């Protein structure tokens, strides 16, 4: 069995070779911590794979993790509940006019017709300058407890970095449902 056949692909073999080599080099440099966490921070992407006689030449690109991206999904409906991108949250300012920030937040939130913009504006959270827009839910003119949509924006980057949506169509029948 060739080395390539031991793996699912030539890329898998090349990936293992690279990280084994990197770990070995880091250990020799006395960087055991970095060696053990290399795969958490670095990732190889396949650029191309070409046959060269009995060998396969794999060209790869090394990328470094920039940030954590957190995504929560509703296990029943698979709808997005929330997402958060930390690196987009830093170094914000108040450079965006508030009405433009609300428009941007609306594009992300896509508030339903029974949503009501409850609050919007700049604030400082954890030392970070952010713009927050929050919608509440009213159904038949009654507030729906627990329902809201929240979008956080970095005005300097003109980007949203956080989104959360807890929204339901009230089930006012006597029959219970999974949600």
């Amino acid at each position, binding site marked *: 069995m060739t080395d390539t056949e031991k793996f699912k692909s030539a890329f898998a073999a090349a990936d293992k070779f690279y990280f084994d080599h990197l770990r070995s080099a880091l250990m020799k440099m006395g960087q055991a911590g970095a060696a053990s966490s290399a795969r958490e921070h670095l990732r190889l992407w396949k650029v191309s794979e070409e046959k060269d006689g009995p060998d396969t030449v794999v060209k790869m690109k090394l990328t470094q993790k920039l940030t954590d991206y957190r995504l929560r999904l509703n296990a029943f409906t698979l709808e997005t509940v929330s997402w958060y991108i930390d690196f987009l949250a830093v170094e914000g300012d108040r450079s965006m006019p508030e009405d433009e920030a609300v428009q941007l937040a609306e594009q992300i939130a896509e508030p339903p017709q029974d949503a009501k913009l409850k609050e919007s504006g700049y604030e400082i959270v954890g030392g970070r300058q952010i713009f927050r827009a929050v919608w509440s839910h009213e159904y038949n003119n009654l507030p729906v*407890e627990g329902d809201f949509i929240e979008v956080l924006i970095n005005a300097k980057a003109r980007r949203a970095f956080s989104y959360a949506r807890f929204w339901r169509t*009230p089930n*006012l029948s006597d029959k*219970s*449902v*999974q*949600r």
Partner: protein
Amino acid sequence: MNEADAVAIAARARSVHNVPLHFIPVAVKKKIIELVDSDQASVEGTPGPGPVRDVVAWLVTFGESAEGAEFAIDDKTGKVVRVLRTAGSYAVHPENGD
């Protein structure tokens, strides 16, 4: 049911749920709330996961300074369907509920 009916039902329920009788109503709101169907008989505490339904309820809050309890009264049936207590709440004296 109107607001006065809901306050009266909640006031009567104070002793059953060990809420001091000298606590007075400080807020009343009508909302749609979610209830979890469970075998749990108590309307207090955090229910486990399970199927849910929504009810229109009157939320009547009794309190004194930072302490309090919120009773949810089902607008259709008049039953107490949930009791929430504020964190760091009052000490309950089981002998007299006060």
